[in-house]
């Protein structure tokens, strides 16, 4: 499904060029559940956002199915993101002015789902994550863990075929973390491809394989 060939990312800093990612070669098949691990600052989030089409400033080749992403215009990349990706941000990035339910509604509304349908989907998702009671609260009124739950819920609400999750359980109690992982497993069994970043070996165990990053280099498995 995803094929990265010699992908490199560099940024200009005061000190000159810095490479964040080097010679990344990666194959992820459809229906895989992959875990990316590595020390802080290794470039995990950077890689994830490239896979998620948020970041277009890199060199190398990226194929999604047969499509050469590196040849696409930013607008077309954004369209791919919208069609395939559900993303859980490390910093959650919930919209502060919107309630929990409204935050969940956002991806659906951008995918032109009809209003009546949306209400049903949002209600189901709230139920699934056990946050029905919080649906009218604003993000600032939630605990860090609750915010993370909402962020995960928002990522899957539009039924993406590719879930990219950047430390989705970092703030959660282990029981809740397990529930998320179980959910990912279920989605993966149903055919959703998942790439997650985590520091937890327990979480990594839910996946099929682990990719290790160190200083921007892909380590041997």
């Amino acid at each position, binding site marked *: 499904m995803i094929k990265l060939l010699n992908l490199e990312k560099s940024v200009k800093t005061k000190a000159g060029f810095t490479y964040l990612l080097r010679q990344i070669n990666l194959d992820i098949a459809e229906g895989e559940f992959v875990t990316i691990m590595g020390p802080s600052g290794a470039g995990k989030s950077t890689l994830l956002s490239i896979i998620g089409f*948020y970041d277009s400033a890199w060199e190398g080749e990226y194929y999604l199915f047969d499509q050469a992403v590196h040849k696409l215009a930013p607008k077309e990349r954004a369209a791919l993101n919208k069609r395939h990706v559900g993303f859980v941000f490390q910093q959650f*990035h919930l919209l*502060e*002015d919107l309630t929990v339910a409204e935050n969940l509604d956002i991806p659906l509304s*951008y995918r032109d789902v009809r209003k009546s349908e949306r209400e049903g989907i949002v209600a189901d998702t709230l139920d699934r994550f056990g946050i029905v009671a919080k649906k009218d609260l604003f993000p*600032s009124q939630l605990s860090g863990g609750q915010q993370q739950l909402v962020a995960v819920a928002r990522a899957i609400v539009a039924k993406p075929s590719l879930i990219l999750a950047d430390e989705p359980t970092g703030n959660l109690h282990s029981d809740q973390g397990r529930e998320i992982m179980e959910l990912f497993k279920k989605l993966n069994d149903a055919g959703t491809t998942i790439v997650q970043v985590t520091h937890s070996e327990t979480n990594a165990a839910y996946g099929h394989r682990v990719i290790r990053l160190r200083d921007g280099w892909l380590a041997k498995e």
Partner: protein
Amino acid sequence: MNDFKFAFRQLLKNPGFTAVAVLTLGLGIGANTAIFSVVNSTLLNPVPGPEPERLMQIGEQNSEQRQSGFFHGVGPPVFQALRENQDFFSDLVWANSGTPFSSKTGDFTERVQGSRVSSDFFGCWNARPILGRTFAPDEAVPIGKDGMPIADSAIVIAYAFWKSHFSGDADVIGKSIELSGRRFTAIGVMPSHFGFPWGGDQFWLPAEDPHVRPDLVETPNYKVFARLKPGVSAQQAQAMLDVLTQRLMREYPRGMSPKTDWLRYGYAMFIQKEGWSIRIRPLREIFVEGQLGMNLKRTLFGLVGALGFVLLIACANVANLILARTENRQQELAIRAALGAGRVRLMRQVLTESVLLAFLGGLAGLVITVWGMMALESFIPYWRPHLKEVRIDGSALGITLLISLGTGLAAGLAPGLRGSRVALANAMKQAGTGATVGIGWRRYHGGLVVIQVALALILLTGAGLMIENVVRLLHVNPGFDPENLLRVSVQLPWEKYERQREKTSLLLADLRERFAALPGVKAVGIEKESGFPETFNVDGGPQSVELYRVGCGMEESDLFRAMRVPLLAGRYFNRDDIGEGSGTAIINETMAQLCWPEEVAVGRKFRAPGAPGAGDQVYEVVGVVGDIRDYSYDQEVFPTFYRPYQELDLQGGPPTFLMRIHTDPRALTQVIRKELKAAEPAMGTPDIHVVKQKLYDSTQARRTYMYYLMVIAAGGLLLSALGIYGVLSYAVTRRTREIGIRMAMGAERRRVLGMVLREGARLIGVGVVAGLVAALWLTRLLGNQLFKLFEVRPNDPVVLAGVLLFLSAVALLACWLPARRAARVDPMEALRYE
């Protein structure tokens, strides 16, 4: 002091913000100070010196005059009686404009208008000459029966006269000036802003006080001005005048014989008129009386309103700017609070900056004031009485400072309060998550935008209506063809032609022949207005109507053919109509409507009651012509009937030739002057002008007013657009992260663009609705009198639609730029921002 220094440094650090804020404020404040200064010194406080409210005008009025609203002068009997009441007035001065003097300039004699005044006249106004001196008490000269001083005397000349006749020569003092065959010695020159009691006065002559003299009954033409003594109220003075009124009515009773007591008989003609009395009014009222005073008031107050709106818009803009800045400084304020700065301390700091900004704005405003006042002076007609110089006066300056300070405080206070509260909250909590614009904040900014849009809409509506008014005015059918038409009004020497109808007619016929022979002249018509109304009875119509008599030429000198006035019914005059006995008349449409509405006028009769014994003078209508507006598009058309010009005396309007010309009418001016001089060597200066130009010039005041309103409205619109732009642009900056998240969630650029545009459009929409309601209400309030004459509906749908379209287009453009910026947000960048 520390706060002040810091505020100054802050302003210098943000030159863009400071420049925009100072200019915006300066514009609002400057324009308003200018209009306020002008209004104040021309309308509200036109009287100079200490205690101007004690200065009064005293005049005679009968019921009829009271109705027309005009305040007339007094006659000698009243003045004499006033002089005896020294308990009430500390100053009692007068002025009488009388007949114009003639002054020789080049080939022609020119008429110059001046006033005969009491020798203490200038002292009453604290008016000092720029050269020489004013009159001494012993310089007053008796006035003869003809209104001329009987001896040579001193003269004080006006600034304009000094410039035109002496080229502003400082050596004018002591020089001799010849007027109407008498010599006057110039003793002083008044400054340009002194024009009293009439702005067109070219000079002032010292004259003896009016008194009842055995050889003359004078009409009440002495304008009398008085200063109330301390402790005397206007009511008390009026009560005294009421007593005087009673006394004079007894002294000049009805039914005196003109043979035995013709003086008392003559003055009784005025004093015994119905409702006659002596009235007193504040001097201030002389500056705003009549239709012209009304017009000026309307124009200036219209501008006051319009500029007030601009000031409000400017204030809203500045408030928005300061608000946005304070929000951006929350971080700094939070740190200060955490370091122990109290709420008062924080507020003071924010306020200091606002007030400093307001002061700078006020300073810029002063500069703009000076320009603005120069621009506004074109609205003040020169012939309007004026005593005072138009300048930035103390109160206007005070108001400027108040406005600028108030704006600074208001703009600083809200964010100041808010800023300090947020700062404290932030200091307590960990650095909050809130990076999107708070709902309260958005409402606050949005409210200001709504107000701006509403105000801009009102301004634009006003300007739009004025444009329509002027356009309509320029399309009014004047009732004749003004193209290539020249009007020549001739000044025949009175001494030779007064009451000499035969001689006058011969001269006019001679002149007509000379003009007709000039190259390019196609037709020459003659017109002579009597200038005063006469009362007639109408057969089968109203009992008594006031009609104006106009003399006109016929056949080769036919006025209507030369002017191309349409004949609506009947026929034109021919030679058989000459002579009172013919009893024929051509009337205008207005008269036909007045006397025989909806009926055929030709063949109907109207009659003037003749002297006792003699029969009525009866006129039969033989023709009806269209109404003529030949001086201004909006001139009032009076019910008029025409008779051959040969029957009219010289008094009234001057004989006038209307010449239809093939080529450019201007080219003929010199030849015409030559012909006039050849036909009558004693001819006065003729008044020659191109009719079409005159008509266009008559719209000058309205056009200027329209341009000003347009400029003001454009300024208001620009400021509003800036405001909308600023608010949305600021909102986009604040919402960068939110927009990034939305894009990460799948929102396309198009959608983001739409989101920002929608937000702007919502504000604009609310503003437009509010503005529409206010505009309709305002125009209803002002509309009736404003647009009565030309039937511009105050809520004209075309104007409103045009204004809405224009405003929306500009406002949406102002939204478009920030919206486009929002659509260009890179989600990756925006999210890393955290």
